[in-house]
């Protein structure tokens, strides 16, 4: 797929793409094109590929979102390195824009100070839900039965939580599309601010 809009948001994978597209719809920010980078390992190559596209000449604002995973500082650094290699403006910290045409802004998920990923935000947004104790109890039970706990726990927690919903909603991609996300929850405030920030020139 090729981006054709003046505002471009690059996210890690398919799930992130679907999530952000739905979030932008909710915010009625239809001027932002969302494309996936294919994971952190391809960050440098993918950013360079997008930058080299002829359509990129039209881009006036670029947002990049990646997961902190085990270290938010390293995640931010890897984005900055990739931006520098592609000869693009490099912000000094997350959520701070740098440069013009394009202006570049980076968001680290769930937060610039926390380990984790997009799904951690989702779990935060439903932490008051009456079924969350059941989800936690499930993983506690796994632990008690000496079953290995998955490395990306929040992704699994989202799956277990969504298992209670009607239909075949097994991940955040479907959750976003089936509108079982509370977009206005305070857990998503930073994401919302970021999206508004990149939609402004």
């Amino acid at each position, binding site marked *: 797929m*090729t981006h054709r809009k003046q505002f471009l948001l690059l996210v890690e994978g398919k799930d992130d793409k679907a999530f952000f597209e739905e979030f932008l719809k909710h915010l009625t920010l239809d001027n932002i094109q969302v494309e996936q*980078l294919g994971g952190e390992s*391809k960050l440098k190559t993918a950013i360079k590929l997008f930058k080299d596209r002829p359509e990129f000449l039209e881009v006036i604002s670029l947002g990049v979102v990646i997961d902190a995973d085990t270290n938010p500082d390293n995640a931010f650094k890897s984005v900055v390195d990739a931006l520098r290699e592609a000869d693009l403006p490099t912000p000094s910290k997350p959520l701070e824009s740098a440069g013009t045409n394009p202006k570049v802004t980076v968001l680290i998920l769930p937060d610039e100070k926390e380990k984790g990923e997009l799904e951690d935000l989702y779990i935060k947004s439903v932490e008051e839900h009456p079924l969350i104790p059941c989800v936690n109890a499930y993983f506690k039970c796994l632990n008690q039965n000496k079953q290995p706990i998955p490395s990306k726990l929040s992704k699994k927690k989202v799956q277990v939580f969504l298992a209670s919903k009607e239909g075949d909603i097994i991940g955040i991609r479907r959750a976003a599309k089936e509108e079982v996300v509370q977009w206005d929850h305070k857990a998503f405030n930073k994401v919302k601010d970021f999206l508004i920030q990149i939609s402004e020139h």
Partner: protein
Amino acid sequence: MLKSFGAKNFRGFQDLTINKLKRINLIAGKNNVGKTALLEALFIHSGLYNPNLGLKVNAFRGLEEVTVQFEKTAEFPWDSLFTWFDTTKSIELYGEDTKEGTRSIRISEVPPSINGLKKTKGSRLNIELEQVSAHARILRLKYTDDKNKSNSYDLVFDPDPSGPKRTPYITPTPPNPPFPAFFLASRIRIPFEVEADLYGKLEIQKAEQDILHFLQIIEPNLKSLSLIYSMGKPIFHGDIGSNRLLPLPMMGEGMVRSMSIILRIANAPNGVVLIDEIENGLHYSILPKLWSVIGEMAKKYNTQVFATSHSLECIKAAHQAFSDEDEYDFLVHRLQFSKEGDVHVVTHDRDDLEAAFEIGIEVR
């Protein structure tokens, strides 16, 4: 083999540089960005000494039937070689060869007054001077080698030629090109005789079995290949196991196109083959096999191949074919317009293509 190439003031290229070339180069880009023009620039450069190649590339575009007019306002056949038809700015084509270093050619139109008395050959004792008329049009090609040694060759159109020379003529007579180069145009039907001639050259060298071998990769049912005069034309016939030989055109456009490509690579040892719109007439399922054949042949004959394509399937097929080989000697060069409206090149290597295909980023 060229390691890099550049063109200035040629067709739509004000200043185009390709910093990295490999044995197999696929040129992509939108319509009218200059894919064919890049092949033409490479073709003219591969001739090194022959100003007439500038007109030959026009013929590849179907413009061979050009009437030359000498009125001041009349368009001349070589005008379109120059960016914006501006013949006051010289064309420069330069390529860095792996063995010969940088070889450049400068093409410019010179007024007959400068050329008025022209030395065609000779020494101080025996100087032959040649007069051209005041209305003559002269295209001068100046070749400069890596050691900065230069030679010039003029293509002269003279409405009032003196002496027995027929216009146009080239003076002095240029040497043969340093290596073979073939340009396979996208639309022009190749006469049977041309293909037969190329095959004949290989037969003389007892290399015709190679052609059969490579065609068999594309059509495994092909048992033998014969050049047979049929209806007055030399037409390739193949044995695919039926009770009679079949003319190659009856086996499909793909076989004819594949044969054309194979014949040219085999006839261009240490040379260059330029193929415009390589996927023309080819079903997508043939493409991976064809690229394997091109890769294998180019390596065997030490031929450098440049091909243009619009097709993502074609680029994917090439990437896949070369990924399966021991050596990935392949690059995709996409031509595109810059903000200023000039054309520049983005080159994609194996890592780029792998990522682009996996993520779904456009590379055409």
